[in-house]
């Protein structure tokens, strides 16, 4: 997201910009830091809410993927079910509580997202360090591979591989990792290129450190911060991609329904049960916005150079 406060003022306000009163810059800077902190706190609270809901939600509100209760199917939000509890977000086509399904789905989506980031991150960081630190033919091969993959729509690659592997949680993680390692590799490589000739690395090398020691003790710690920023931004994208795959029936299997699948199921009941598709979609969008805002705020705060990545 662009940060409006940082932009140069346009002409309409240029009088103030041309003749700044002495107190102007510090005030602006302070406001900027304050807004930045506010964005971080707000987005973190939203994400924390989802994580808590994903962890304890399914314990409080049981969801059984194979259960059906035809007596209470397609009930609107707020209906009191015969079983005694109120379906806050209504029920779906087989009488399941939509909220319970969403809580279970939050678990699936967040788990898949984190697992994908760990796998893609490990592969990408390893490739990026190898390419950046050793250079030479290894660098050429890895970066050409990255170029080739970037010139190919990632959703298409994911759809193709997922269609062959079949729907399962592990397969979704594999598929999404394959389409996401490139970002990590590129960021890591550019960081390593800047780092490897810095004085502290040279000093460590002069003291007789082996390559492994250099990479794990000197290079890796300095790469972690930008990688975490990138990971935050990517997490939102990964969750969206997972939902899209599940929507197409190529993501998680029916036994572990994610949001994408719930939304897809609701498609057939749009005229008499709008809530099945609508509410999980809003839930998904808010979480993705949360990660987007957090990622942007972290980047602006810790490493504005990453903007162009």
């Amino acid at each position, binding site marked *: 997201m662009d940060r409006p406060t940082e932009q140069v003022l346009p002409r309409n306000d240029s009088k103030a910009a041309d003749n700044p009163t002495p107190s102007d810059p510090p005030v602006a800077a302070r406001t900027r830091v304050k807004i930045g902190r506010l964005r971080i706190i707000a987005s973190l609270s939203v994400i924390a809410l989802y994580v808590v809901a994903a962890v304890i939600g399914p314990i409080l509100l049981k969801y059984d993927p194979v259960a059906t209760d035809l007596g209470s199917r397609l009930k609107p939000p707020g209906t009191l079910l015969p079983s005694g509890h109120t379906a806050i977000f209504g029920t779906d086509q087989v009488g399941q509580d939509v909220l319970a399904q969403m809580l279970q789905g939050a678990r699936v989506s967040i788990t898949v997202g984190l697992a994908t980031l760990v796998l893609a991150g490990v592969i990408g960081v390893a490739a990026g360090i190898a390419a950046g630190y050793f250079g030479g033919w290894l660098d050429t091969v890895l970066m050409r591979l990255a170029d080739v993959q970037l010139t190919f729509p990632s959703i298409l690659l994911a759809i193709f*591989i997922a269609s062959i592997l079949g729907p399962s949680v592990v397969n979704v993680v594999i598929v999404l990792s394959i389409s996401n390692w490139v970002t990590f590799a590129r960021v890591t490589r550019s960081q390593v290129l800047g780092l490897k000739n810095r004085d502290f690395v040279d000093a460590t090398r002069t003291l007789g450190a082996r390559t492994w020691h250099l990479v794990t003790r000197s290079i890796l710690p300095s790469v972690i911060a930008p990688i975490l920023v990138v990971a935050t931004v990517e997490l939102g994208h990964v969750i969206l991609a997972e939902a*899209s795959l599940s929507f*197409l029936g190529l993501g998680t299997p029916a036994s572990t329904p994610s949001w*994408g699948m719930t939304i897809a199921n609701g498609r057939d009941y749009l005229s008499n049960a709008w809530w099945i598709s609508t509410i999980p979609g809003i839930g998904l969008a808010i979480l993705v916005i949360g990660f*987007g805002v957090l990622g942007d705020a972290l980047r602006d705060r810790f490493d504005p150079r990453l903007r162009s990545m």
Partner: protein
Amino acid sequence: MTAYLFRRTLFAVFVLWGAVTVVFLVLRLVPGDPAQLILGSDATQDEIARLREQMGLNRPLVVQYGIYLGDVVRFDFGDSYRYHSDAMGLVMGRFPLTLQLAVVAMVIGLVLGISLGVVGALRVNRLADRVVSVFALLSQSMPSFWIGIMFILVFARQLHWLASGGHGGFDRLVLPGITLALPLIAILIRLTRSGLLDVVHENYIQTARAKGLSERLVIFLHAIRNALIPIVTVAGLEFGKLLGGAVIVETVFSWPGVGRLLIDSISARDYNVVQAAILLIACGFVLINLVVDVLYGYLDPRIRLGR
């Protein structure tokens, strides 16, 4: 320029070869028998053996790869077992519809993206700018399949203004077109806005103002040119992505393009058509990238002389 053109074309061919190879490898190296995969779990041993023979799966991988490459060069992807016709022909028949959708989305994206970006830059940090920025954030964060469903819910089911799916007249293009265009709109808003804000303090803009040009003329005659270079590039690259995004949008709106055919063929295990569809979209994507690269090198000499 010739050397640059040659280099870019070579890279495009390289990428296409990569795509073809990936499709080949994924189909054959995945655990399980491709013949089994195609025929499904209730096929008899006899049928599987026959298909293995037919597909040449009993030969060494390298030989299979050679035969496959030969077939690809001749655009021969075998027959669709569902439609009993040439797989590539089938996909090509659907391609104009996908292209139509992508072009409509591109036009909507360019018009809305650039104009909203200009509004944001003219009213920077005011209410209109904030609204535009929030709109950009939302269009980027909401899943496109869900937006499509919401459009159907509101405009087709509730208001009965537009049809919910299928193909036909212009009215059936509006909803899928906007849905597909949303991520593009978001990107173009940001690019235009930041591109304009980057130059508002440049000397040549000051000069234009000093001559007494109205703010509008300054923006549209002078400032926007600077923002246009990245817009051309990104719009070109995004057009390729629209072809990929069309897979999802076509599914939501039952638009009978390549994407819809791809998803249907996946669920019907019609892998010849799946391969043909994937490679056709990849081909379109690579070609568009090539055109953008060449155009860009033409517009900005620094690029082609750079390496």
